[in-house]
């Protein structure tokens, strides 16, 4: 055995000291495995547990009913919910969700949240779901407590942002049976009237301040 290895060819003996560089050299022609993160983002899995989102019904009313089940399910106590009654009366605070109550205050502390998804499982109305957003780093501790305004899903085509009344002639259960497709003209008229009213009051207080 030992004698055989001694009889290596002249060529292989000559290249023996630099044979290790062969690996380095051949690596130059291999495709790069590195993920170029900030420029090219590798997509997450479709069910990735990312940042939360508070969903809306097709007409723009919020799905959250302020039941606090997510807060109870949370193992890290990262969620704070304060429910309130929907107010359909004249001059009231308005209606935010189809049912009796809505989530008035909704906070998630992302410095406690462990993205386990138990809140999603606990949610009875599928109001709370998770997105694939994961870029959450921040320089400030209080900036990472997300308020309801940051968590709410964007208002999409056919939606009107709450508060506004339910679709005429429909009840709460009709919303969950998918009988609502989009906001009705009555709802948009109501929202426009409210907006005009708010603008008028804001203008009058401005005049008072002067």
């Amino acid at each position, binding site marked *: 055995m030992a004698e055989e290895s001694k009889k290596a060819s002249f060529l292989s003996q000559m290249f023996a000291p630099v044979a290790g560089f062969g690996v380095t050299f051949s690596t130059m022609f291999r495709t790069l495995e590195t993920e*170029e993160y900030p420029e090219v983002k590798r997509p997450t899995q479709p069910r990735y547990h990312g940042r939360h989102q508070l969903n809306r019904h097709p007409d723009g009313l919020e799905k959250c009913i302020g039941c606090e089940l997510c807060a109870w399910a949370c193992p890290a106590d990262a969620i704070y919910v304060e429910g309130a009654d929907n107010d359909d009366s004249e001059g009231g605070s308005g209606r935010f969700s189809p049912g009796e109550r809505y989530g008035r205050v909704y906070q998630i*502390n992302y410095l406690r949240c462990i993205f386990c998804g138990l809140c999603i499982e606990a949610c009875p109305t599928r109001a709370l779901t998770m997105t694939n957003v994961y870029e959450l780093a921040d320089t400030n501790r209080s900036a990472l407590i997300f308020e309801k305004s940051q968590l709410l899903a964007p208002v999409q085509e056919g939606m009107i942002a709450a508060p506004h009344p339910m679709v005429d002639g429909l009840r709460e259960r009709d919303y969950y049976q998918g009988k609502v497709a989009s906001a009705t003209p009555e709802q948009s008229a109501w929202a426009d009237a409210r907006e005009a009213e708010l603008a008028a009051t804001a203008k009058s207080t401005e005049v008072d301040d002067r």
Partner: protein
Amino acid sequence: MGIEEKLPAGILLTTVEQLAGYMRKSSVWPATFGLACCAIEMMAVGTPDYDIARFGMERFSATPRQADLMIVAGRVSQKMAPVLRQVYDQMPEPKWVISMGVCASSGGMFNNYAIVQGVDHIVPVDVYLPGCPPRPEMLLNAIITLHEQIQNAPLGVNRVNAAHAAEAAGLAATPTHDMKGLLA
């Protein structure tokens, strides 16, 4: 102190600041401070798949004397707290801290007597990173956030003034142990 004080605060100093900031941010060396599961993700960032060397962090320094950045990865127990502070004190200025993961940032789900409720009780934190554990991209994102901070950091007199302003703001702010609600 130096030439910075003799020059009028203006265009020259800001250009120098930008240049110095660029150089500093391109060669930040992290100290290894893996404490728990987050450390696994931190190690993954060092692998060729994510390749932290792209950001000038050629290696994780095993000694705090040669480190600029402490990535606190994992829950800090009360017993580890003085050790962490000592490692931080041994690092030369300028130094930065990334609090990686929810446990380091606020105690996370371990709201009990054994775990420090946020590493900012012990050392000043520059970037908080949520996630349990954060995926490697999230750590890279935090590093990029820190790079922006380093790039725009003031120098000389401006730096002293900024430090005074930060201290005054810190004294006026609610102490961490007095905070209520989700901030507690």
